[in-house]
């Protein structure tokens, strides 16, 4: 069987794409101290608004910008809740996920008359986004570990008091990277729409959560997180080719089993930012 063909590598890259983008965004966000499990919903919102705007404007580029915009907006809302109002990060993220599903069912019904799916929308070649993402990940790795801004970001997540003393605005840094996270999730959603040519409420299908897992496996580093996402995509592409040999009940599990096994191996060893999930309160500690 021609399992290790170019074809499977390409399919794996397509499957890994949304996971890798979410993992990259979450890396930035968690490095600054903000957990966002709302990435699943944020990606769906990017797909939804991206598709809607592309449908009405007739331009895939305008749709892409709208997807980035709505992602940033959700990232901002999440940040405001977590940073200034000191809400629980997980609860706020879960709220985003629920909110977007409701919005998607409502909006698709109002706009297209079919709950849950859109009509065909204008698209651009999804491969532009794929190669853009690969470049972005290399840039992010350099940014995070080779530039002063990356250092500041890491300090905010490790020791916000020290960062504050050094004159770094902890609040604003966290908000900024949460917004960046939202933008990358929105981009993941835009990729899905450009790949399929329409919006569907199930199109993210848990890949946002897998993105968080990929980030943990990648130990909060962009390139390793991408490799983890690619591994998941590869095993998913592999199981599709193995369904003739292995019953689908088992083969479909493979990528998820792999995620659990790899996570169990990495979770203990991952270097979690010290101030992750804790609100920063000035004048305390």
């Amino acid at each position: 069987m021609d399992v290790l063909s170019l074809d499977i590598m390409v399919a794996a890259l397509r499957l890994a794409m949304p996971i890798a983008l979410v993992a990259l965004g979450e890396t930035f966000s968690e490095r600054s101290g903000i957990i966002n499990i709302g990435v699943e919903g944020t990606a769906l919102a990017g797909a939804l608004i991206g598709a809607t705007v592309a449908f009405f404007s007739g331009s895939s580029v305008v749709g892409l910008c709208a997807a980035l915009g709505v992602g940033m907006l959700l990232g901002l809302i999440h940040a405001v809740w977590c940073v200034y109002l000191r809400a629980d990060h997980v609860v706020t993220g879960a709220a985003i996920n629920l909110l977007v599903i409701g919005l998607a069912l409502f909006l698709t019904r109002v706009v297209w008359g079919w709950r849950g799916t859109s009509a065909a929308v204008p698209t651009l070649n999804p491969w532009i986004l794929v190669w853009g993402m690969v470049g972005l990940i290399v840039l992010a790795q350099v940014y995070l570990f080779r530039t002063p801004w990356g250092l500041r970001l890491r300090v905010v997540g490790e020791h916000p008091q020290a960062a504050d003393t050094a004159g770094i605005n902890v609040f604003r840094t966290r908000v900024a990277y949460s917004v960046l996270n939202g933008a990358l999730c929105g981009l993941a959603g835009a990729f899905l729409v450009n790949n399929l040519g329409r919006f569907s409420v199930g199109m993210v299908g848990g890949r946002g959560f897998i993105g968080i897992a990929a980030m943990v496996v990648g130990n909060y580093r962009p390139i390793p997180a991408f490799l983890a996402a690619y591994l998941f995509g590869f095993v998913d592409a592999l199981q599709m080719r193995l369904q003739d040999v292995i019953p689908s009940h088992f083969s479909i599990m493979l990528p998820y089993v792999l995620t659990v096994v790899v996570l169990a191996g990495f979770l203990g060893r991952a270097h979690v930012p010290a101030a992750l999930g804790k609100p920063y309160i000035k004048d305390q500690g």
Partner: protein
Amino acid sequence: MRKLFLILAVVALGAAMAFGHPKIGLVLATGGLGDRSFNDQGFWGAEMAAEEIAAQYGVTVDDVLDYVEPRSIADYESFHREFARGGQYDVIVGIGFDHAPILEEVAPDYPDQKFVVIDAVADADNVASIVFNDQETAFLCGVVAAMLSETNKGGVLGGMDIPLIRRFVDGFTQGMQWVDSDAEVVVRFVGDWGNPTLGKELSLEIYRAGADIIYGAAGASHLGTFAAAEERDSWWAIGTDVDQAWSAPEHADVIIASGLKRVDLAVYNEVMKVLDGTWEAGVIGYGMTTPAGLGTGIAFGPWDVSEYIQASYSEVALPNNVVKDILQKLDEAVQGILDGTIVIETQ
């Protein structure tokens, strides 16, 4: 004084019941509305019945029809119980095979409530189980696939590897092989009824494995099959349950035919039977070879040939003589199924 209130209350209650209109509770499958196939069609059937009731009682459709879209199978039980608890629904309909085991648990707790389940048999005294001869529909789709495939290989994209979808696979395979005994079928399962992203990826894999025409049987997931078919001129798709060249018109250039399954008719009929008092629990079959004699078929070609071979909105350009040949072969297959010379084996 208290007695007076009691009498008034009883009278008021009686009046409310006398003037109350029938109500339908609908629990959809996890694929949800908007699959442009199975769920949407089930909904239309309930809507059609609700419109008739609404016109009769001078109320709105929203008053008559209440529906919920569970996001996971775990939600089914609570939705069915929620509908059944108040006793205000004349009939509760569950769309989808996976409702059956849950109704077997729930239905005995509400013996006076009438339930309907589509696509599976629920063994309970107050449940009507609707089962379709999906293999007949799939057989006809297989005939079309075999007549058109240049690689002599067809594909089926299934939602899950379950007996229901195996009926699709078996019927399709035998339909192809009835035309050409060397025909092969590639089968892949998504594991999800609502994820067209994965559906597209698996469809690309089926095409890569050599099939050039894919029969989608995966709810909203096989919307991805149509998107995949758009990528090559030589790739085609067959839709499911409704004429998907109509319900997904942007893909009418690749959807060459659609298997028909009148879920809407089945739901409508059950509601009407409840209203006129002829409703009965038990198993009710739909299909060419059932007593009902209808409910399965195919949408292909520009005109209706019989009640089983209906016109399609497909925009695939085929030479006239090819269309004619296929229609003839389809008619032959239908006659064969009806008179028993074609027996479709299912597991």
